């Protein structure tokens, strides 16, 4: 083919395209290694067509040695990958190094490249002096990449040539930016900046010590920057170099510091601490703003030494100030005083001034300097507190009731004189004790419970009547009031206790109570007596009047009577009635005697003895009725009383038990003796007719009552029994149910 190609050179295979003689077009047959160039190619390469041997190798030879590898690689790639672009340099026989931009595209058949076609364009003029640029850039690049500052190098198109590590980190980008336009990387760059870049590209040097830059994400960057053009060897501007410093952090720091200063200033004003100094040599004081404010002086006020001191209140304050200033100047003594002054506006206030002397090399005091503070509010509070404290102290010491401060554990912290009086301990001894030690054991529990609640916050105070033991062992009654004092964090600090000695009152109340009780008892006794008395009166009136009225009536009837039989009958009745009357009178008198002689002739009596004697007496009836009388219990039981009465009581009860037996039921009588502490008790239990207590209970022990239509029923027995028992200081009661028998219980005092 070669020969034919050679021949046909004059007739270019590219036809009319050949007319474009600055665009190189080439064609390469892969299989036969044949390279066909157009006119443009020959022009670019500076090779005569006749001299061309149409081989790949020939092209290769034309290349600049250091670009061969890259170009070849690119060409080989084209065989597989399709269209691609690449650049390399060639050595033109006449023009020297030329920069070529090449394209290539492979034509495949059955997947394999058979032909490659492409273009070549000489772009040397557009690129400029590539080598030089490259060289400079290379040098710069090294420098730039290594510099600790943020520097970037751009070409005339504002494309990145190089960027330092610092630049990359500052702007949070990577080295991929190389070759990319700065405006593409940072689309947010404003026109103003672009204008600057343009100016610099024209030769302007731009410096900005603080520029604000708003990033895409809204964050604000403050920069210091420096932009200048860089030039080729031939002084032609190649692009610009940008040097920036991120001030944002620094700026932030500064801002913080400013804020701090502001706060500090404010604090100072709040604390109202001012500064001052006095030039001792010139005798001139200098006041800062706060000091001036404290003095309430107008802005144009100029203080002089004497005037300054005259602000202080005449008398103590002024004298003190003068004294201290003198001491500071003459004896190098620093001072710290709290005194009163009157401000320019006539207001009185407390101030504190702390000052120290400044000496020169010869030891002479040349300056006084210090701080000044308005302490009016604090001072006032202090004074108030002092007064309150004094008042409290006064109230505390001289209180008519005991006052104490008690620790949370119960220790006496502070006690007043009255406390000392109440407890009978001298003050210092009392302070070694706890309240628990002095509290009566019966009252301690409740006190501690209330205390616990108070500490826990369930209550803020409590009142409690309680007993303490005095030093001399005597028990005293007090009314205790306790309240708790808490600290700033609500922690319990101590208790304030008030103790009122109410012993007298309590004792009085107690005696009153006792007197009341005694009175009640007495009243009961009296009313009992009264009752029995009225009962007595009632009974006597009835029991005496009845027979008497009968006698009267009988006599009248007798007077009118005409029949002898009737008269006889009436006489009979008269006799009956007078007897009845006599009996009644006897009983009554006996009862009176018993009542009257209560307490007399009392002796120790063994109950067993009496009972046995009585039972022996009833031997006959016991036999007749086939009765069974048993004695149980404490056989040694003794009572204190009248022998006759005891005998009478036992006899009556046994007699009744026998008398009121159920018809045809042999009486079983149980007498039980019980020791009941202070009393001796004996019970007489029978199985007889019983008594309907619901009906007759009231009158059971009354005089002359009968409850059964029993012939032997006299009834006066129980009245006498009760009288006798009660005269010995005892009691008698009965339990009974009809048809079930009765139990009479007698209680008598033991000797």
């Amino acid at each position, binding site marked *: 083919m070669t020969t034919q190609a050679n021949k046909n050179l004059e007739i270019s295979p590219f036809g009319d395209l050949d007319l474009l003689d600055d665009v190189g077009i080439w064609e390469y047959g892969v299989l036969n290694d044949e390279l066909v160039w157009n006119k443009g190619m020959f022009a670019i390469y500076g090779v005569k067509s006749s001299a061309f041997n149409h081989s790949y190798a020939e092209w290769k030879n034309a290349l600049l040695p250091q670009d061969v590898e890259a170009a070849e690689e690119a060409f080989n790639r084209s065989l597989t990958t399709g269209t691609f672009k690449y650049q390399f340099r060639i050595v033109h026989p006449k023009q020297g190094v030329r920069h070529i931009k090449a394209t290539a595209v492979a034509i495949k058949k059955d997947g394999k490249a058979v032909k490659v076609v492409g273009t070549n364009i000489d772009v040397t003029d557009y690129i400029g002096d590539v080598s030089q640029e490259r060289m400079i850039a290379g040098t710069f690049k090294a420098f730039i990449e290594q510099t600790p500052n943020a520097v970037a190098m751009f070409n005339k198109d504002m494309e990145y040539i190089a960027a330092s590590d610092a630049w990359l980190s500052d702007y949070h980008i990577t080295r991929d930016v190389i070759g990319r336009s700065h405006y593409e990387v940072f689309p947010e760059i404003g026109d103003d900046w672009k204008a600057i870049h343009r100016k610099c590209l024209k030769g302007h040097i731009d410096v900005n010590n603080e520029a604000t830059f708003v990033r895409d994400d809204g964050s604000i960057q403050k920069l210091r920057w420096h932009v200048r053009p860089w030039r080729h060897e031939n002084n032609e501007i190649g692009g610009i170099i940008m040097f920036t410093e991120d001030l944002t952090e620094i700026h932030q720091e500064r801002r913080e510091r400013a804020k701090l200063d502001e706060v500090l200033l404010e604090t100072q004003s709040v604390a109202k601490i001012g500064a001052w100094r006095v030039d001792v040599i010139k005798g001139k004081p200098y006041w800062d703003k706060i000091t001036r404010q404290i003095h309430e002086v107008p802005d144009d006020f100029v203080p002089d030494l004497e005037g300054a001191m005259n602000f202080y209140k005449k008398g103590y304050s002024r004298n003190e100030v003068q004294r201290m200033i003198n001491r500071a100047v003459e004896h190098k003594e620093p001072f710290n005083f709290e005194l009163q002054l009157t401000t320019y506006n006539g207001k009185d206030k407390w101030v504190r001034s702390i000052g120290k002397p400044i000496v020169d090399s010869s030891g002479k005091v040349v300056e006084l300097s210090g701080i000044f503070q308005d302490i009016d509010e604090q001072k006032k509070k202090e004074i108030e507190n002092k007064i309150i404290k004094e008042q409290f102290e006064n109230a505390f010491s001289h209180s008519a009731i005991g006052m104490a401060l008690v620790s949370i554990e119960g220790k006496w912290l502070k006690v007043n004189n009255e406390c000392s009086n109440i407890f009978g301990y001298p003050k210092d001894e009392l302070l070694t004790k706890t309240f628990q030690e002095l509290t009566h054991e019966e009252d301690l529990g409740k006190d501690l419970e209330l205390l616990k609640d108070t500490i826990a916050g369930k209550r803020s105070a409590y009142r409690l009547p309680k007993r303490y033991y005095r030093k001399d062992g005597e028990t005293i009654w007090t009314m205790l009031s306790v309240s708790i004092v808490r600290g700033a964090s609500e922690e319990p600090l101590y208790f304030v206790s008030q103790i009122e000695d109410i012993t007298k009152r309590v004792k009085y109340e107690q005696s009153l109570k006792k007197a009341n009780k005694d009175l009640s008892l007495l009243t009961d006794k009296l009313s009992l007596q009264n009752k029995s008395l009225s009962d007595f009166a*009632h009974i006597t*009136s*009835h029991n005496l*009047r*009845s*027979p008497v*009225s*009968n006698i*009267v*009536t*009988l006599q009248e*009837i007798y007077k009118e009577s005409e029949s002898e039989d009737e008269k006889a*009958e009436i006489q009979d*009745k008269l006799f*009956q*009635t007078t007897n*009845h009357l006599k009996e009644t009178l006897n009983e009554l008198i006996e009862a009176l005697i018993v009542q009257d002689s209560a307490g007399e002739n009392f002796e120790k009596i063994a109950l067993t003895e009496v009972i046995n004697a009585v039972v022996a007496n009833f031997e006959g009836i016991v036999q007749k009725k086939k009765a069974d009388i048993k004695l149980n219990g404490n056989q040694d039981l003794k009572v204190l009383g009248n022998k006759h009465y005891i005998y009478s009581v036992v006899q009556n009860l046994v007699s009744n038990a026998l008398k009121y037996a159920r018809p045809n039921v042999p009486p079983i009588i149980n007498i039980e003796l019980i020791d009941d502490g202070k009393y001796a008790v004996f019970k007489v239990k029978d199985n007889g007719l019983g008594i309907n207590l619901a*009906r007759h209970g009231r*009158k059971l022990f009354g005089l002359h*009552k*009968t*409850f*059964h*239509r029993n012939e032997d*029923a006299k*009834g006066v027995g129980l009245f006498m029994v009760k009288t006798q028992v009660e005269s010995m200081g005892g009691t008698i009661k009965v339990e009974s149910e009809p048809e079930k028998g009765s139990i009479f219980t007698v209680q008598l005092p033991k000797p």
Partner: protein
Amino acid sequence: MKKPVVLCVIDDDDVYQFTITRTLKKTAVSKRILVFSDGEEAIDFFETHLSKADDLPDVVFLDINMPVMDGWDFLEEYVKLKPNLPKPITIYMVSSSVDARDREKARAITEVSDYIVKPLSEDKINDILIELST
């Protein structure tokens, strides 16, 4: 001929029973006299003769102090009985007691017409009987 008045004495004192009966007999009024020794006896009689108006007393002389069932107890029972009685009965409380309390107690009971202190004189009885017939 007027129907005989039925008089009733409730008292445990047998001497008194004797004397009062005699006094009552002496009055001009035609009568029958019932005597009971205690309240229980009397109440039992009333209860068993509720249908027989003629057998029941018109007047009762009631003693206070009696065994088994005294005057007060009797009245308690009587009050329960009263709604079923076929005729009205006048009750006089009779007692040797001058105790004002007894008198007051008797006065408080509506069924008791009056309180009389023993001994009952003939005149007093006559007055009562005359009052009855009116």
